């Protein structure tokens, strides 16, 4: 069964949220979904860029109360 996990990288600055996500991605299985929480404005653009470059699937990216929730599914 694919898992869903929260990666809480709030209050860290670039490239903290990205590196947090990547370390969880490494340990995840294909099909798992991770939700990255970040308060870093730059990461809201940079993380989706990384997801598309590496070939994972961006599920959603929305800002709720100053926190970005970036959902990504591991595709490979």
């Amino acid at each position, binding site marked *: 069964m694919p898992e869903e996990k929260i990666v809480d990288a709030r209050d*860290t*600055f*670039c*490239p903290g949220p*990205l*590196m947090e996500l*990547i370390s969880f991605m490494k340990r995840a299985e294909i099909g798992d979904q991770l939700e990255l929480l970040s308060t870093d404005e730059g990461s809201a653009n940079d993380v989706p860029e*990384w997801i598309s*470059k*590496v070939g994972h699937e961006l599920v959603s990216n929305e800002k709720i109360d100053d926190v970005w929730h970036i959902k990504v599914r591991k595709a490979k």
Partner: protein
Amino acid sequence: MTNKLSVMCVSGTLEKLQMAAMVSSVAAATGEDVTVFFSMNALKFFLKENAELAPPEEGDFGPLINVEGVPAFRVLFEQAAELGDAKLLACSMALDLLKVDPQDLVLDFGPATGLTKFLSDAEEGRIVSF
């Protein structure tokens, strides 16, 4: 084809070490073939005896990155190696002058490396220097 990025990390100031670490970790984690070559003033901050030594700030930006929440440059280099298979190499000349071996360094450094080897490995890739 994998992109190849060779990073020369030579300055011993916080800002340049931080930028070199950011570029190295992000590139390595994005699948680039990253080699980081440490020499000159940068190298001493990776000696085991200096594991906690803070590099001097270069300018006004230093204090802004010297706060909680900004990933430490040593941690980013470690992540570059662990998450992105970056190779961390120390300049053989700098090791000789400091009278140390790669085993005296924190993090998992590869063999002592000369400029000829570094430059030949960097061929057909990009080199950035900090």
